[in-house]
Every structure is written in structure tokens, then in C-alpha cells.
């Protein structure tokens, strides 16, 4: 299923034809730059893909309203894989072989991204992924980039904060879902660099209804100074509630997987004092006035909320960064040749996005460090940036 509006295409053609007839526009203006995208706008990961699809359409409209790139409009060819990696792969092939795109932004899940990478690698077309896992860009593939921070960065941000507060002995409780498992492993990989030690390492199933047994074990472990919970969905909310129930008082760190208002609602009073790394978008109105990201974040938030009537999500932010970054790269390359675009993306330096400030290189196809995260504390049912964590 394609979201490209045929009606708009017809209108565009008619308008272009009218302009041509009037002799007002050069022929090149009607020749759009084709950018492909495959996201999971429906299916089980629709809560990620739906804001992505809406954002991509919004950004494309914004770019065209400003006269396009290099004086040419962009044409966004958007497919919905319904959360199915096999379909994503089919659409990727279609984008390359039939639609003739010059670059690609998309891939909602890590699974879909990994399935599509070989297609774009073979065709030597740059691909900016919107998925989280670190294996997308590590090892570096010359044509593959991504915009969301990795779970490794989140772990590093948490450990930096712990180190600053002198917490060195911790307990872990992680979800056994893909996100929780992957982040737990990333945390274990980098934890040594911070001199922090894991005394107790527990887990819970994504559909578990009660985590008191695991937390009780952590509570009864001598010397635990803080607890980290990599997880996603309702699990972390139940962990937070049980944590308060058992009267655990050491700091609780959640991951960026819970960075949404619904987490505070679900965890209720128990959420007070929880600390987590989160992107700037979450605290758009609380950013300092001299914060470089503030204008970008506020503009995106306002545009998205006006256009869709829904609150922004960090996932839409990844799509915003993906397409904007690509547009900037095409502008800089001065051509729509895939190889030139690729080189320009890799040379991205200090690009201010919604998610962070990107500086890429031949070794780093993400370009975000721990400074792209803000460490937040939950206070009175709202996010409060932790100044000490800066």
C-alpha cells in the first residue's frame, strides 16, 4: 500500500503544465528528487511507525513549500510494511528498481532495517534508518546511517550520572523482550569503563503482572546502591510500582524506553524520583533559551501537533531528523547523485536535530554522544532536567 497521494501528483503535474504553458518555469522544476521510505505505520509497532509516517509527510511538505531542494521539489515515496520485515524488503526492492529513488529514510524496527540493508548496499543508495539497535551502524556499512541514539548511549548516560553521584554497586532488573535484553547486554559491555559493579541481575517477562519476587531479591542483596531497569512497555511501570511497594529507597534508573507521559500515568505516585535518560523533545518547553536544539525542537513540536492534533513522540523526532538531515546533505552535495549524497551525509558536522546534534564520520554513522541525552528526574508527575547530570 502506498501513501503517495496520486491526487497531489496529478495536481502537481497540472500546475507544472500550466506553468510551462505560461513559459514561466524551466523544465527542471517539474523534475522531482525521489526519496524513498518504508515504515511500519500499521501493525504491532504502529506506535513507532505512525508518528514516523506523519512526520515524513509533514517534513516533505515543509521542504516543498520552501521551494524544494536545489530548486527541485522532493517526491516522498512512502510504503507501509505493517511491521513485517519480509514486506519491508519487498518494498525496498521496489523503491530501488521501479521507483528509482536516490536516497532512503525509514526502517521502523531493527528487524525491518536489517532486512532492507542488503538491497540499498547493492544498489549503492544511502539509507538512513530510524531504528534503535547498535548493530545497524556497528560495524559501519558505507551506505547505512541512523538517527536514533543507541541503547549503549543510554547506558553510558546512566552510568555517568551514577559515577558523578558516587554510586558503584548496583542491581539490574531487565525485561526479557528484545529491547530490554539488548540494552542489558549493552550496559554490561560498558559498565566496566565506569568502575561500576552489578551485584544482582534479575529479569522479568514482558507480560508479567508482578515483579515483587525479583525486587525482593534485590532488596535483600547487601550493598546495592542503585537499580537500573532496561525495559519497554508496561513492565517498567509495574517494576516502579512494586519498587515503591517494597519500600526500596535507593535511586531507580529507567531507560529511554519509558520516556513518555503514559509511563508517569501508569506508575503514578511511585514514579516520583525515578531518573532516566531522554531526548530534548521530552522537555521542549524546559530547555534553556541558549540551548542550540531549542528552536528546532519547538518548531517540530508545534508543527507536528498542529498538523496531527496528537502529542509529539520521540519516534517521530527520529524521522524528522532523518529526512531533514538528508535534505541538508543533498543541498550540500549540490546534486542528487546517490554517491555524492552519501559522502555529504557522512560529512555531517554539527547538524542540530530534534534528537541531538549530529557529527558523523567514516567511523561513526550515528554521530550522537551521551550529550544528546538529558538526564531527567520525575517530580510532581513531570520531567525535571537534572542540572548536575550535565
Amino acid at each position, binding site marked *: 500500500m502506498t501513501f503517495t497521494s496520486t491526487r497531489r501528483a496529478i495536481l502537481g503535474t497540472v500546475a507544472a503544465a500550466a506553468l510551462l504553458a505560461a513559459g514561466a518555469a524551466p523544465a527542471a522544476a517539474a523534475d522531482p528528487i525521489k526519496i524513498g521510505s518504508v515504515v511500519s505505520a500499521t501493525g504491532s509497532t504502529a506506535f513507532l511507525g505512525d508518528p514516523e509516517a506523519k512526520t515524513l509527510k509533514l517534513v516533505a511538505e515543509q521542504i516543498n513549500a520552501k521551494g524544494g531542494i536545489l530548486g527541485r521539489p522532493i517526491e516522498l515515496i512512502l510504503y507501509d510494511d505493517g511491521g513485517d520485515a519480509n514486506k519491508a524488503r519487498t518494498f525496498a526492492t521496489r523503491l530501488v528498481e521501479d521507483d528509482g529513488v536516490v536516497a532512503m529514510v525509514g526502517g521502523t524496527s531493527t528487524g525491518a532495517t536489517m532486512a532492507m540493508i542488503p538491497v540499498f548496499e547493492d544498489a549503492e543508495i544511502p539509507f538512513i534508518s530510524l531504528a534503535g539497535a547498535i548493530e545497524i551502524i556497528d560495524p559501519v556499512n558505507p551506505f547505512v546511517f541512523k538517527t536514533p541514539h543507541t541503547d549503549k548511549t543510554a547506558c553510558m548516560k546512566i552510568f555517568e550520572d551514577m559515577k558523578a553521584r558516587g554510586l558503584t554497586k548496583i542491581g539490574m532488573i531487565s525485561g526479557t523482550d528484545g529491547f530490554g535484553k539488548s540494552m542489558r547486554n549493552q550496559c554490561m559491555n560498558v559498565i566496566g569503563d565506569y568502575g561500576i559493579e552489578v551485584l544482582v541481575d534479575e529479569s522479568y517477562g514482558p507480560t508479567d503482572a508482578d515483579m515483587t519476587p525479583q525486587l*525482593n531479591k534485590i532488596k535483600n542483596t547487601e550493598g546495592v546502591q542503585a537499580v537500573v531497569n532496561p525495559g519497554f512497555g508496561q513492565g517498567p511501570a509495574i517494576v516502579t510500582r512494586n519498587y515503591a511497594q517494597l*519500600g526500596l529507597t535507593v535511586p531507580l534508573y529507567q531507560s529511554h524506553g519509558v520516556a513518555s507521559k503514559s509511563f508517569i500515568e501508569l506508575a503514578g505516585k511511585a514514579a516520583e524520583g525515578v531518573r532516566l535518560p531522554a531526548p530534548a523533545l521530552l522537555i521542549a518547553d524546559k530547555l534553556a533559551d541558549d540551548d542550540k536544539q531549542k528552536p528546532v525542537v519547538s518548531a517540530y513540536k508545534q508543527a507536528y501537533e498542529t498538523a496531527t492534533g496528537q502529542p509529539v513522540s520521540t519516534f517521530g523526532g527520529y524521522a524528522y531528523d532523518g529526512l531533514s538531515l538528508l535534505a541538508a546533505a543533498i543541498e550540500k552535495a549540490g546534486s542528487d547523485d546517490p554517491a555524492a549524497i552519501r559522502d555529504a551525509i557522512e560529512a555531517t558536522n554539527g547538524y542540530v536535530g530534534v534528537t541531538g546534534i549530529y557529527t558523523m564520520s567514516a567511523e561513526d554513522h550515528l554521530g550522537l554522544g551521551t550529550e544528546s541525552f538529558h538526564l531527567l528526574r520525575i517530580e510532581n508527575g513531570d520531567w525535571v532536567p537534572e542540572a548536575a547530570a550535565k
Partner: protein
Amino acid sequence: MSEFLQLLISGLTVGAVYALVALGFTLIYNASDVINFAQGDFVMIGGMGTVFLMAAGLSLPIAALIAVLGAVIVGLLLHRLAIEPARGASPVTLIMITIGASIFIRGAAQIVFDKQFHTLPAFSGADPINIAGAAILPQSLWVLAGAIILFVALYLFLTRTLTGKALIATAANRLAARLVGINVRVMLGLAFGLSAAMGALAGILVAPITLTRYDIGLIFALKGFAAAMVGGMGSPQGALVGGLLIGILEAFGAGYISSAYKDAVAFLAILLVLFVMPRGLFGSKSVERV
């Protein structure tokens, strides 16, 4: 000691919900020979219905009442539209019908409600009570008390009222029941309505602790089914003991052994019970019709 108590209460709370779901399985199985895999979805309808009715401005008791009635209507429709037209079909066909119904209910719930997680406020505060060093949520007591009251009420209904006795008679022998003038169709509908009401009540009681979502019924159906199997499919006492046993085993497994094997502990128990006592702990020939 405090750890033991903590794990015990934690296990009993979740186990009580498994037991109520298992009891729903038992009621329907006894009356109609159907293993109703949509049983867990009644739990979801109870919880989600109450959440949305409260969001619409109703008070908790009113919202809960309407949600339970809603579940009963869904239960009756399930019987009338899906089970009854397939009368005489093989048990496997009937199981497939209920699985299909469960998928349908979940799909409809996504549209009627939404795809987000929701929670209900705790009935009497969220401050844990300290009992011998174990922190217990007041809501856990609500769940346990609610489960006990439902069991007793059901027991009294089945043994002390004429309608209840007619239901037992239908379960024991449908043909004989019809011969003595019992309206078997009404009795089967009653069994579906009752199990739906029990599932929905369980869902409302437990929603403040476990949260609820359109697809929460699946896991409760699986665990409730396991509880019914351990206890002996068809035995109400078995449903109670099986549910509590699985809840406690899960909690102790996660607390004393390893959380990595939590689900394995419960399923190991089922295998063990089924190997040693194929009819389950309380299964006996008396509930089986030939």
C-alpha cells in the same frame, strides 16, 4: 520469614486471578464441554471497560457494574452466535471457535478502547501495609477477599438454589436434565454469563496492580487454563487450588531460584501433575460424561 511472606502474598494475589479464570473455564466446560479460550478476554473487558467508563465520568462502583454487565452480554453473545450454531461439532472445532472469538474480541477492543496500557486507581489507597516485615498492597487484600467471596457465592448458588442445582444437573447429564424439564439452552447461556461476570470482576480487582490493555486476556487465559489443568478440568475446587498453586510456584520460583525460569516453573508443575495424575489434582470420573 518476611521474604517468605512477601513471596507468598505476591503469589496468592496473582494466583487468585488465575483461579477465577480457571473457575470460568470449569463452569463452561462442565455445562457445555467447551474449553472457552476467550475466558481471558472477559478479564480484559472488565478492566478496560471500567477504565473507560471512569474516564467518561462515572464512579468506580457504577463503572464496574456496567463493565461486568458488558462482559456478560459478550459472554451471552459468544454462546448464542458462536457456540450454539456449532452444536454437535467436535471439541477441537469448538476450541478453534473460541480461539477465533478471542482474536475477534481483542481486535474489537482495539477499536472500542485503544492500544495503550491503562490502570485503575487502587480501591483503598496505594500505601503498602506492613505485615511481619512484608509490604502488602491493600489492593492485594481486595483481590484475595474478592476471590473468596466469589467462590463462596458461587458455591452457595450451585448447591442451595434451584437454578444452581439445575445447572449442576445440566453439567452432569444434559439429556436427563432435559427429561426432567430443565431448559438446557438457558442453563448453557447462564454458564457463559456467569463465567463472563467472574472473569470481568477478576479483571477489575486486579487492574490497579497489573495494569490492563486490549491484549492482556491472552496471558490470563493461558495461565487460567494451566490452573484448570493442574487442578483437574471440570473441578471447581481444582480451579481454586490450581490457580493459587501456579501463582505461588511462580513467585517462589522467581524469588528463590531465578527469574529467568519463572514461566518454566509453572509449566514444569503442569507437566509433573499431568504425568503423575493425568486428571489433575481434583479431577475425578464423576464430572466426566461418557
